[in-house]
């Protein structure tokens, strides 16, 4: 049963929540506003920014100057590709760890997570050299592989926690009914874990979409995703705020829209298993 909350208290909490929410969202809102201003107006005092005329000039310039569609397609291929490849590896791995844990399962899980503790720049040169020798620099295949590897520990950890919430007895019952390993994973486990898998997929797509270290360092012209598209609009000499804002909005809009539509799934997945 919900706890009774007094009205003034509720009001205060709501107000605080709104203030925090707005503070977090404000930079995106400001970028959105700046993207519709001319360069001259974008750097003016905040009040002037709000009252000056709106224009689509920046979007027009950005579209004219950059091949947005190519960057966008690369982002889609990299994020979706790395997520799918990650799932193919992570589902069996998480299944094994959740339902047939061995003596070292915990250690393996922790070891996997430890790879995330190393700053990526520490392995930049070796990976760059390997990519150079294998001819993978500026290729989507190489980047899909790298993005899969860096996000794999998170995917496995998330799936592992979801799978553990599924009672082993159900799988046992399926086995008793004659289901093989394939049927068990595909027809019993996976449908039950759909909310968990969905939120893992969504989170991983968002992480891969926004990844800006490897995607900037291992690409040049062909495989560059939207992160490079944004990086090409910043400059230490010259005015660029409006164009940079427009480029940023164009880069985050697809993922924002996707997140908006799937937020129910995302929240459900993230809180999956919180209540038994």
């Amino acid at each position, binding site marked *: 049963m919900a706890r009774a909350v007094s009205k003034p208290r509720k009001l205060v909490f709501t107000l605080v929540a709104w203030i925090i929410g707005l503070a977090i969202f404000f930079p995106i809102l400001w970028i959105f506003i700046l993207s519709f201003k001319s360069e001259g107006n974008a750097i003016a005092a905040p009040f002037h920014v709000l009252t000056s005329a709106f224009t689509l000039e920046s979007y027009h310039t950005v579209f004219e100057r950059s091949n947005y569609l190519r960057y966008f397609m690369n982002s889609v291929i990299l994020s979706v590709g790395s997520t799918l490849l990650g799932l193919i590896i992570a589902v069996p791995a998480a299944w094994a760890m959740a339902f047939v844990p061995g003596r070292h399962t915990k250690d393996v899980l922790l070891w996997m997570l430890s790879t995330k503790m190393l700053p990526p720049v520490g392995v930049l040169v070796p990976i760059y050299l390997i990519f150079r020798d294998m001819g993978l620099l500026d290729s989507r295949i190489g980047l899909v592989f790298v993005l899969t590897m860096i996000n794999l520990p998170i995917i496995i950890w998330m799936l592992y926690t979801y799978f553990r919430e599924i009672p082993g007895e159900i799988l046992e019952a399926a086995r008793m009914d004659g289901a093989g390993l394939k049927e068990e994973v595909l027809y019993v486990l996976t449908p039950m874990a759909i909310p968990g898998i969905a939120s893992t997929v969504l989170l991983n797509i968002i992480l891969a979409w926004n990844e800006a270290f490897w995607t900037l360092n291992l690409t040049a012209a062909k495989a560059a995703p939207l992160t490079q598209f944004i990086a*090409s609009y910043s400059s230490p000499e*010259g005015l660029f705020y409006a164009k940079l804002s427009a480029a940023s909005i164009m880069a985050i809009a697809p993922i924002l829209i996707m997140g908006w539509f799937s937020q129910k799934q995302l929240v459900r997945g993230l809180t999956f298993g919180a209540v038994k």
Partner: protein
Amino acid sequence: MTLTIRALMGACALGALATAASAETNITVATVNNGDMVRMQSYMDDFYAQHPDIKVEWVTLEENILRQRVTQDIATNGGQFDVMTIGNYEVPIWGERDWLVPLDDLSDAYDVDDLLPAIRGALSVDGTLYAAPFYGESAMVMYRTDLAEKAGVTIPENPTWTQIKDAAAKMTDKDAGIYGICLRGKPGWGENMAFISAMANSYGARWFDMDWRPEFDTDPWKATLTDYLDLMENYGPPGASSNGFNENLSLFQQGKCGMWIDATVAASFLTDPEESQVADNVGYAVFPNKEGVDNHGNWLWSWNLAIPKSSEKQEAAKAFVEWATSKEYTMLVADKEGWRAAPPGTRQSLYDNQEYLEAAPFAQLTIDTISTATPEKPSVQDVPYVGAQFVSIPEFQGIGTAVGQVFSAALAGQMDADQALSSAQSLTEREMRKAGYEK
């Protein structure tokens, strides 16, 4: 006609198409995001008309990301780029290491002797040119003529730092939101240290003595930093420790700065009526010097196109570099956008052109400051290094930025000039010892 013959003919046609396609050479050009470079990308039709067999792919990046990206690629022989946009800081270091293709066989039409001697010298190692300059800049004083008049000060053509301080004091009207002087304060070797190093040069200071010992504990450095902090604290805008080129540009354009001492390239932004509210009231003067020190800071910077040795398409890359830095390209820009937009500071012929001199009021001073900059002898004292507002050694990016952070902290009021100098001295000594310079 039988099906077999048709199929064969089809295959031949496809084969011919494939051969035609493979005859095209794709080159990848890494470049910075600035107005001149972006403009070039819109003129590519002219290049394709001359070189239909070459296709250019652009990788445009923010300056710091670009620097890291191309350094990593050239140091690992990655071969990702066929043409790199690099500064005159990198060119001598990379040229010496044999990482760049020497540009010693440029065509006669290119007229390599037309390049400004100061710029050409900065891009050469032992007389061999390793990069072609796209645009060059020095530094100068830009000031508001209307504010100077109102305050009753005259800024001479060759001001001293005392005169600058005096003018800053008179032009400052904090109640009206006008600050006498705006200078860089944001930490970074190419940010505040570019300015402070040039200022130190004009005070007779130097980064290192002939044994590579840092000189922050000497009087000229003390005078430089004390005066810099004094100017900014009394007459500078609030929060100056986070102001770089762009922030100051924006302040000046909004009419909040009396004077601004920075790169000459800023003048074209300040006089652009579409962007600047003070476009009609900008005056120029030479970078100041301290009384008795015959040195105007020696600021010299250029963005250049170079071809890494790792490129497999060096011929096509060279054709592009020649086109982009040629006299014809300058004419092309002038034709389409007017002379004011021509890439400045690389060729003597541009400054012999009366039309350009008339269209760009800052042109004469730009050429004068560039021509008198001497990166091989930046200070009145002898130095073991080359470089004007920087020191051309690989370690400088790290050291310059660390010292820049200390000086920026002093500007923010976290320490005084003496503490900042002694901290800069010890950190530079430590880094130079580690790098093996100490004799």
